[in-house]
């Protein structure tokens, strides 16, 4: 079946502009994560959505970053007034997180990422 998709695959923008990154999770997955991966670094957690619950925004680096998830499916990560340090690969992952036969299932399925370059 279809995996997690992200668009655009690459985005080049000028400092100060706003950008929107899109994530289409696997159908039926209740959990969705956004991460940022800077060059040579590991993944930095940004935000987590689970069903209709309030999102966990504890990883967002500043108030310029926001995300929403409409209808429990597609998610959009918005970065306002982009800065050069925002340049990174932004990865989205979805998970069928929940209990199945009493076992927690939380394997993440990652999208291919969006490479953001802020000039």
């Amino acid at each position, binding site marked *: 079946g279809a995996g997690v998709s992200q668009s655009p695959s690459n985005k080049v923008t000028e400092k100060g502009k706003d950008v929107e990154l899109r994530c289409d999770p696997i159908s039926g997955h209740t959990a969705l994560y956004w991460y940022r991966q800077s060059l040579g670094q590991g993944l930095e957690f940004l935000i987590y959505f689970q069903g209709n619950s309030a999102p*966990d925004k504890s990883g967002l680096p500043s108030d310029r970053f926001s995300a929403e998830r409409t209808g429990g499916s597609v998610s959009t990560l918005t970065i306002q007034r982009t800065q050069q340090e925002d340049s990174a690969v932004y990865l989205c992952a979805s998970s069928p997180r929940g209990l199945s036969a009493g076992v927690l299932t939380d394997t993440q399925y*990652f999208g291919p990422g969006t490479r953001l370059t802020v000039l």
Partner: protein
Amino acid sequence: AQTVTQSQPEMSVQEAETVTLSCTYDTSESDYYLFWYKQPPSRQMILVIRQEAYKQQNATENRFSVNFQKAAKSFSLKISDSQLGDAAMYFCAYRHSEGNQFYFGTGTSLTVIP
């Protein structure tokens, strides 16, 4: 705060040989999950193997196995019979059983030499 450390930025292995990637973590929790993810040049992260902390038995998936030492907070990945397709960046990750946030290490770049 939880931290995950991968002390080997780069590793190489001859094709068909065995290689072990190291990972240590720091936590005060007793119930958590550990993961190894593979990231090839395509950038997409692929789950390799998963371990529940409450299980003493080491997880195994075909040629991939882990050595989970809970007391030492160590979670190494062994790749047996290495193949060219195993070349990638490998990330170790931690998640508390009740938490949402995954903590990733900085990765180990694995090269497989033909």
